[in-house]
Every structure is written in C-alpha cells, then in structure tokens.
C-alpha cells in the first residue's frame, strides 16, 4: 500500500508552511525595527512551530495512526493555531492602540505595523488551513 496526499493533506501542508513563514515574520517583526527589544510571546512562537512539525509528521506517517487519531490531532492543531492567532493579536494591541493616537509616528512604527499585518494574515491563513484539514476524513488516499 502506498500513500498519496489528498486535498486535505495538501492544505495542511500549505498551512504548515504558512505557519512557519508566519512565525519567522513574527520573530523578525519582534526583533528588529520599532518593536526590537519588546519581547516575544512564547505561545505565539511555539504553537505554529508545533503545528508545522506535527502537520509535516502526519504527512509521513498516515498509515501508522488511524483516521480517528488523525482527526483528533488535526483538530488539536487547528485549535492550537487558532490560539496562536489570538495571542498574536494580543501581542500587538499596544502597537495598534498607539497608532490610533493621532501624533507623529516614526516610519519604522508603520513598517512594524505592516509586517504585523503580514504575519497576522499568515497566521490566519494557517489557521484556516488547519481548520479545513480538520474537516477531512483522512489526509492521504489509500491506493492499492
């Protein structure tokens, strides 16, 4: 029996990549420019990494765990990614609130905000990807 990743598996793969890219954006966004030195939320970093790692592992071990377990794992991955989205937003509330203040803002603050938006979009897309993958019965087709 060989495996071929189905549409849900592909979406989960894409979600994993988006989560990885997203976390890189978040880390860079938090480390350089306007937000340098402001610290990072551990969960905002760890959760996407875990989601990515688990998703990729799932792609290579479809025949080891059954559909129910796969479903539970993808479910947990989507919950985790959803929680990462929430922590990302919380981590940037101060930045958003500051920008609502109509005083002059340094250019790198707007840059930080732009990359925050990019990162957040990646997180949200990754979350939606895991969510869709969760709806699949399995991640790979069984082929004789």
């Amino acid at each position, binding site marked *: 029996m060989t495996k071929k990743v189905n549409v849900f598996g592909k979406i989960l793969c894409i979600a994993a990549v988006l989560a990885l890219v997203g976390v890189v954006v978040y880390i860079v966004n938090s480390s350089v420019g306007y937000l340098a030195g402001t610290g990072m939320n551990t969960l905002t970093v760890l959760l996407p990494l875990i989601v990515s790692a688990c998703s990729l592992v799932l792609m290579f071990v479809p025949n080891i765990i059954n559909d129910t377990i796969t*479903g539970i794992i993808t479910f947990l991955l989507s*919950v985790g990614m959803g929680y990462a989205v*929430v922590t990302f937003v919380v981590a940037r509330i*101060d930045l958003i609130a500051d920008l609502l203040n109509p005083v*002059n803002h340094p250019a790198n603050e707007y840059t930080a905000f732009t990359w925050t938006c990019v990162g957040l979009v990646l997180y949200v897309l990754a979350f939606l990807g895991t969510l869709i993958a969760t709806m699949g019965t399995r991640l790979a087709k069984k082929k004789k």
Partner: protein
Amino acid sequence: MSKLKGVSRGLTSLAIFVLIASLVAAPIMESYSAPLDTFFGSTSYRIVSEQSGEANWIYKSEFKTAAEAVEALRAFAIEEAGESFVLLKNAGTLPLAEGANVTLLGLRSYAPVYGNSMGAAPDTTVIQDGNQSYLALQKAGLNVNPAVTKKYKDWVVAKGGNLTPDGELYAEYAGAGSSGPSESGDLDLTGTATAPEAAIAELGLSADDYAGYTDAAIVVFGRPGGESKNYVTGGTDSTTTNIFGLSQEEKAVLAEAKANFETVIVLVNSVNPLELKEVEEDEQVDAVLWIGYPGSYGFYAVPDVLFGKVSPSGHLGDIYLANSAVSPAMVSFGGDGSVDWANVDEFTPDDSVNSYLINEESIYSGYRYFETRYADVVAGVNNAAEAKAGTYTAKDTTVATVDGTWEYADQVVYPFGFGLSYTTFEQTLDSVTVSEDKKTAEVTVTVKNTGSANGKSVIQVYAQTPYTDYDKQNLVEKAAVQLVDYEKTQTLAPGSTQTVKMTVDLRNIASYDTNGAKTYILDAGDYYLAIGDDSHVALNNILVAQGQAVEGDAAKTYKWTWDSLDTETFATSDNGTAITNRLSEGDQSMDINSFAGYEGTAKYMTRQDWNGTYPTVHEGIKAEGRIAELLRNDFIKLSTGSEVTFGTDHGHTIYEYTNLDWDDAAWDELVDQVTVEDFLGFAQSAFHNIEKIDSVGYPGNKADDGPGGSDGGTYGVDGQYQGKMYAEMDGYDESVAGYGTRIAPTPTNLAYTWNKELAIRNGELILGESTLMFNYPIMIGPGVNLHRHGYNGRGAEYYSEDPILSGYTGSAVVQGAQSKGCLVNVKHLGFNDQEINRSGIATFMTEQAARELELRNFQQMIEANGKPASLSADSALYTEGALGVMTSFNRIGAVAPSANKGVQQDILRDEWGFKGYSVTDFTGVAPKAAPKESLLYGTVAFCGFGVSDPYFTADQLSADPEISAALKKDIKYTLYSLAHSAAMNGQDTTSHREWVDTPWRAIYRNMKTAGIACTAVFGVLWIALEVLSAKKKKGAK
C-alpha cells in the same frame, strides 16, 4: 457519515476559536472602554447613588431639558462668532444695505472650514441639520445667488463630494483629520499642502450667472487647521510660494469677482494667518472680513455683521505678515519643522527621540520682533535697518535675495491688535497710578463713540520698559511694546461714553534676568504705558512721547521713572517662593548651551544687533552625554528603604472633603487611606476616564476631550439633568439626539473677541455645561499654547501669539468652566509650538523666553489672573486658579515634559502654587513618559493605554524614599482636585458603578455565547459520530 464527522470536527474547532477569542477580547475591550464608547457612541457604566438627593448636586446645570440647552448654546455660538469677526479693510462698502443680493464665490463659500480638526472640531451633526454655511447665510437674511452656489455644489459632487439625503453637502470634512468629502481623492478639503479651488472655467461661470445678484461678490478664501495638521513653507504657486499666500486659482476667482462686480468683499476663513498684502492694496477689493473658523452656527452671524446689525469689534490676536515665512521664529521651523538629531538611529522606540528645535529668536517672536525692530529703525540703533538677504521681506512680498533695508511696511500687513469698526471711538487715557510697591497700575480710560453706529471698543494697554546697559551686559532682552491688559466696552450708542478702570498687573512688565540677578528684574529708567488701537499704534504713541518723528499721540501714553535696578520686587512669587533660575542649568535646563559639550551651540538673537544675530539653522547636532541620557527617559535611579506608609484606614470617604481647604490637616487621614495600588490604578487609566479609588469610596467617572466642547457626549445618549436622562423626559425632542456641545467658533475666534466676560461665558457653556449635562467631570481643555508663528497647524485650537491675550482669555474660560465644577485640563504645558514631530521633539530656548512667553501665558490661568474690570470685588470668580493641566508631547529641553522638574515642580507647583491634577497627553505608562520621574515631579495621571514601563509597580515605587514621599503629595493633589469638582456631583457614600450594556459588550458577549453553544453542539455531534463510526467498524468486523 465520515464527511459529517469531519465537518462537525472542523466546526468544533472554529467554535473553540470563537470562544477563546471572546474570552481574551472581553478584558481587552473593557480596558479600552473609553475609546470604544467614543467610537460606538455608547456609555459603558453609570454611577448610581442609592441616597442621592438634591443636596448632593453641588453643581447644577442651567438646562433642565435638551431643548433649552440646544437653544442657549446656539444663541451663544452666534453671538460669539459675530463678536469675533475682525474687519480688516472697509472702503465704505460695509455695512451692506439690507436686502442686498449677493453672489458667493470661491470653493470655501460652498465648503468652508467650520472648525479645526479633533480637539475643537465643529459638531457636524448640527451643521448637516440644515446649518451649512450657504443655508445659514440665507436663513440669516442674505440673498445668495442660487445658480452660482449650485455650480459649486455640482463641481464638488463631480469631484466625489457626498450629499446628505436633503441634497446638501456633508460636513464631515469640517472636523476631519485627513480626508475630505471625496473618496476619489480628487478633492481634499482638509489638506494642508495645497489650497483647493474651483477654476472659473471648470465651473462654467459667466456674467449671466450673476444676473440679479450683483450688489456684491463675497469671495471666501480658507485654509483648514487643527490637531495633527502640519504646514510647511514653500512649494505652492502663490507669489511667496507659501501656502498662506493666494494661489493662482484663488487669484483668478478674485479677478472674476472684480471683473463682474462693483463691490467685492473678501471673507478670510482661516486661522493660520493668510498673506493679505495684495488684497489689502487692491483698490477693487472693497472690504476684508476675517471670520476664522466660525463653528457650527457661526455663519448665521455673518449677515448680522455685513448688514451692520452687529458692528465688528474683533481684533487680531496675531500679527499678519506680508510673507508668513519670514520671521526669526520661522528659521528653526525650517522646511519640515525641526531638525533630526544626527544620531537619531541610536535610540530605541521607547526613547521616542526624533528631532530638536532651538528657539534662537529668544523673546522676539510675533509682534515683539517686528515692533521692536521697527522702534530701533526709527531710533537708528542696534543695527536694525540693515538686513541680510533671506532675513526680510522685499516689497513684492518675496524673500529678499540681496542685502537691503528693513522696512516695517514691507513686513507687516496688519499689526497685532488690529481691527476696524463701522463706527469710530475716541479713547482717552484719563489717569495712570502706579502703586508704591510697584506691583500694579490703576489705568482709567474713557471711551466715546464718536461715529454714527452702535459698537463695542477694545481698550488695549501696552507697556514699554527701558532697555539698559545692564540688560545688554546680561543679555536681558526687551520688547519695545507688549500687551499688559485689555478690556472691552459695552455696546456704545453714538455719542455715549464709558469709563473703564483697570488694574494692570506689573509683574508682566518685569524681565527675567537669567545671567545677572537670576530672577525677575525691573530696570532703572523710563517706563511707558500706552493705549492704542493696535500694537503698532500704541508703540507709535510711545515713540512720539519720546520725541521721535512718527505719527502718534503722546497724550495716550503715561511715563514714569524708576531710578535704580530692582531685583527684589518680583523675586518671590505670591506664595513667597523664591523665583530663580529653573530652566538654565541641570537636567531640567531648556538652554542647550548649558549642557556640557554644547556650550555656544545656540546663538540667541539679541536686540543689540538685529542683523548680526538673526537666527540660523543648526543642523547635524548629535545627542550625546547627559542630553542622550535624558532623552532615554530613565534618569533617576530607584532606591529602597522608604518608611512612608500607605493604606491606613481611617474610615473616611472623599465625600466628606468637598469643601475642605487645601491647608486643612484633615486631608492627611484621607491621603493615608489610599493604597499605592489604588493610586497607580488611578494614574494608569486616564484616557477619557477618571478611575475609581476604592480606598476613599470614589467609584470613578468618565472624562472627555475639549477644548471646543464634548467630543463624545450627545444629548440623546449622555444628556441629563441631575441624573435624569433628557431622552427619558416628557417632550424630549428626538431631532437633537445627536447634537453635542462643540458648536462654538474655534478658540482663536474667542481670543479675537478680546472680551473677557464672553470668554467666561464660553467656559460656562462649552466646557462647564459639557461637564454637567454629559457627566464628564474632566474636560480636557482649554488649549492655550502660544502661536509662536503662523505655521502651527494646530494654531486654531489655541488663542493667540501673546501671553496676556491668551492667558487672560484662557483664565476667563477656566473660571467659567470651574464655576460649573468642570475640572479643566489646561493644555499643553508647555511649548507645543508645532505638530511636526511633536511626540519626541526636544525644545530648547532661553529661560527668559520660556518664562516671559509660554509660561507667563499659563501662569495667568493657574493663578486666576486677568479678572475683568466689570466683576465686583466680591465675585466668586477668580478666587481659585485652574485645578488641572495636561502636559505636552514635545520634550521640555531634553526631558519628557511631565518629567521636567523645572516646569512641573519648581515653577508650576512651587512658584505658582498649583494644587491640582496633572495628566500626560496620551502617553500611557510608557517609558517615553518617564513615569517614575513624572510621578516624582507632580504628575498624577497618564492619559493613554497600557503599562509598559518596567518601574511602574507598587513595590518598586513605594520602596523609594523620594518617590514614595512624592506619591503622598500626588495623592493629595488628586483627591483635592476631584473633591473640588463635579466628580462629587450627585454622589455620596453609596455611589457605585452600574454597568450599562453597550454594542461592543454585546459583541464579545454574543461571541462567547455562540462559542459555548457551538462548541457544545458540534463537539457532541463529533463525539457521537466517532462513537457510531467505531461501533459500525466493530460491527463490520
């Protein structure tokens, strides 16, 4: 089944996400309740008192219904507008005959600037309720050419402008921050880079369009302004290339008017001074009327003035120049308003460092420069007549490109204080008596209406002090003329007179001597007081008295002589505090030259050599040494070992202290009760909010932004009379539900009335009644920073370039507001000269300039100075100064404004005796506010969101001996100011917060409910399907 299982699993995940988001959102949204309330127009809580009775209402509103309030405020707004208009030119054309048929020309005749953006923005709901300018003019009796106005409407609509359901122009742009009515971007009515104007050809106008409406063309030119607005010099197509000159398109409109109408009247719809020399000198322009930003109802006052029902009595509170970019103060303003530190990249965002501004002009901003140099030109001294290229205006209003002669007439179009009337007045200086203690002068002036129309006259009293060798040796600068007091008469009928007796505060003629006596001095020599119709006339009167060959009237001056230098009379403040250098040395210095390594950096202008010391731009300065340390906002290290205790319960509540004097020892026990945690909780939650203080039984209140009235309050949502909501009263008129109190002309208009009594009334209605009707004990206003030059985009929110006109206007507003229990926040202390880089810019100047201009201005409000001559000695007003201030964004020297000990502690609290509430301007508890230093020097609250400063913890702050002692004082300032305000109104020991449902609370609440329900439903479904699936598989095997 497997598909259904997957879908239910996915939906369960989504539901959990919604649930988590709602749980996280709830506390965040609650912490941002004030801005959310503003955004949604909601009220998130009310204060409920179980035993509240009549006696608890310490302050009572004048208005028991919304209808009463709307009508009274409307009438006042129109009265104030009419009295603020300044007649700049009149060739006998005005007043117009009633019934005149006129044509309005210029884009601003259809889409005027009603008010400034943000802080004093006009109420657009009111405007759009049939009070648009062109409608108001018609309703007030002006027969306006409908065809031409329609062509402007069509043009604006074609450019993307939106119309109300009634087919009239939306006025959202009137107080908007950045965008106009157009979404297409073709037309931006609020921008400051260009002056939009409709070309005559584009409008398709021809002489036929004017038929029947040719009695006069009224041409309106305007420029917007307000918070966050920036103006810069150059880059436009006006003669001077400045934005304040008339653009080619505007000149074309004027040419069209002149070509088709015998009578041409120009309305100036701008607060930043326009360059009007070409209009003034144009013989075909018959009249010019400054209307500023007249507010939501102000255009109703225009016909009153045009027809002569109201004779103009406003006077300019700023000098009007031929070329607005040419003055010493504009040098450091430069092209972009400031100069970046050369090593700005070495600082972090928390440092909030960008640029510096060195006010090299010293005290010579505005009319002080132009009139003083003029006096020296007349006297032929101090290298005044010679002028280097680039430092003066040529006869064609451009910047002179060659060295030449400085001519007053080439520089100034309208002097400070200028304003015409439909009648004439004769002012007689009856007597002047200088008190033996040198502190006051009794000035008596009789005014006679010598013309043929009713009118009010403004008595302007100016002073000249001697400029001596001592001054030159010690670099004490002296203006040749300075305003020291003013009064406005009642309406005088032709032939009638009024005698006004004024008590001039001679503290305001003392000069601050930084280098010699290190305090205020009175020089030996000749002193003059003079009356005059404006600053130039008054100066000429003095010059004539001195024997100079200029036109003037020496009889309007009074001279006295003091024989010796006096370094004592004004060396102590009213409360006995020694006045000495506070801004010239150490961390709090405003003089960049005082910092090690920066000696000689600034070369301040001196009257000794006008041409040789004209300011220059200093680029490329690096922030190093102590300046760099101060810029990083962490310059006081915390220590431990404090023995100060907090939170001792004596069983008191704040309600027992509403009438208690500051010096009463009973305050100690109340202050003792407050825990550090309670106080820090109060201090960190000050965005449109007065946080609860549980340890004294205070449940908190809301606050709102002024200075033009309530930002968020409306009669429908917030309006109430002693706790009973207007909207719940019988006969409530729904049509005014969306109205608020931001309906008066912009603050600059108020100052231009030169009417202290009117300013008191403005304070009562616009700030005071906002407090009472909408239950906002704190109103953030008035805004009072001086107009250092004409380019501060926010100038409209402030009063004037002069510290006495501004200070006395502000003081009157404060008195009116506080009479209603409003806890004012006079702002922004201090030196908000410009909006460009306002958050972070480091502002430097001499201590003399700081004290004699901006600080003298604030001092009048803090000390309740400037009492009108009409008020009796036993008036309850002017017995207590302002009880609240808001600090600025810009640094004072190198230090965060709230952390500048010199200004906030030594001068504000020690010298002036300020006992009130001091709040930062939207910093939050962030490092940029230098929170621990600010608390140490008297700041009690931080407007903004969030705590990101690592030192802002009860443990750290209460452990430090100095800061814990300061916290005790800060707590007393807080409790005292709250107890003497409407924060106590309607409250008692049973008062508590009662939550009110709001749209934003409904969002997170409904999300939570949906999240829980969906998680349960889809989760159970998923589990059930999994169980069924497992059984099925088992059965199949």
